[in-house]
């Protein structure tokens, strides 16, 4: 509550003195356990700001809304560490100017919410490096263990079962801050690389290509996983790919606004034990 109140005051001040033209945060949702995105432009709207441990959505995707940043005015945004990493990637991929973003960082343990020090993305580099070096112990869920024990055939069947539910609503893509393409590859039809139909093959192709495009870019904010209306455990794939680029290339997505995209760069001594 203290954090929330303090941030309300800060946002009001920054709006009042013209430092920011808008702040993107959270407000109460349609049920007590829901929070919804809030666009704060006035002091009254700032009073609606809610900041608690249930504020999970990574809001950074809203920053690349067409036209939002084109007037070069600053925009504030409430972000967890994953969200801050998203800002770094968006900056590294030239989708926004990091200096235009005023970060209201926060994190939570249990129900406690605490603010993170810093406003500009650069000020969080120490924090992000610490997270890289000491990743939060991800509590392995039963699914993890199940998949680990599977052989290739069983894994294939497992994922096909999961993907068979997909309805291609693209909520995963739309919720993802990294999916900022003007035209998604699935919507590119000359040629149609990915079967648009929502049969299992088309669903598999879609999900695997999205996971590939997110490799080295996903910060595991969980937006896609939460958005999926049919509960496909997308987090597991993205986590797996994040581990792959971390182990393989020491790449921790979103560490700095100048980080080189891992799949557009290389090292001459990259591992190649798998190549015949």
């Amino acid at each position, binding site marked *: 509550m203290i954090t929330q109140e303090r941030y309300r005051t800060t946002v009001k001040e920054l709006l009042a003195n013209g430092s920011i033209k808008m702040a993107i945060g959270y407000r109460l949702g349609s049920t007590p356990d829901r929070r919804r995105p809030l666009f704060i432009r006035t002091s009254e709207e700032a009073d609606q700001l809610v900041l608690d441990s249930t504020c999970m959505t990574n809001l950074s995707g809203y920053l690349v809304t067409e036209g939002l940043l084109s007037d070069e005015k600053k925009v504030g945004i409430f972000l967890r560490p994953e969200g801050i990493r998203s800002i770094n990637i968006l900056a590294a991929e030239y989708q926004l100017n990091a200096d235009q973003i005023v970060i209201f960082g926060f994190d939570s343990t249990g129900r406690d919410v605490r603010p993170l020090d810093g406003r500009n993305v650069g000020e969080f580099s120490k924090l992000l490096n610490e997270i890289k070096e000491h990743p939060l112990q991800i509590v392995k869920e039963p699914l993890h263990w199940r998949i680990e024990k599977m052989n290739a055939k069983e894994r294939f069947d497992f994922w*096909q079962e999961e993907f068979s539910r997909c309805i291609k609503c693209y909520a995963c893509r739309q919720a993802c801050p990294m999916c900022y393409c003007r035209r998604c590859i699935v919507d590119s039809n000359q040629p149609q690389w990915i079967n648009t139909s929502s049969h299992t093959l088309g669903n598999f192709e879609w999900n695997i290509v999205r996971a590939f495009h997110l490799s080295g870019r996903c910060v595991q904010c969980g937006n896609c996983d939460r958005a999926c209306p049919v509960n496909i455990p997308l987090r597991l794939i993205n986590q797996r790919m994040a581990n792959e680029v971390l182990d393989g290339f020491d790449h921790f997505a979103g560490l700095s606004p100048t980080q080189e995209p891992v799949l557009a760069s290389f090292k001459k001594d990259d591992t190649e034990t798998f*190549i015949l």
Partner: protein
Amino acid sequence: MSELKFEPKIVAFVCTYCTYAGADLAGTSRLKYAPNVRIVRLPCTGRISPMFILKALQKGADGVLVSGCHPGDCHFTHGNYHARRRWMVFRALLDFTGISPERVMFSWISAAEGSKFADLINSVTEDIRKLGPFDQYQQLIKETESPATL
């Protein structure tokens, strides 16, 4: 019905400067290898997108081979270094989703390695033959051709 021997279908994506030339050398040296491979020629391994692999599988490939110049030999100086990273990531992704690395393989074959090319095609064909047809993927394809259920 007589027992039909399973003949694996293998699609190879190769760069024109090294592996394609290596395959030509296998030919000019009259080396013999299994006829199961179909070669798609690209300018560089850097041009080989993961989509190609998925489409080869959709066309019923039981195995896919991707091959290019050895590190340092790339005609385009470092297309193959980029490719190597993509392969490693894509391969891990396929593996995690149940497409065994034994079905999607990567190699470096230079223009001088005609015999390596022939040997590799033989061993890959035999490996895939042992693995059997990629029934699971072909089942997915079959599903797309059947009417909606219920």
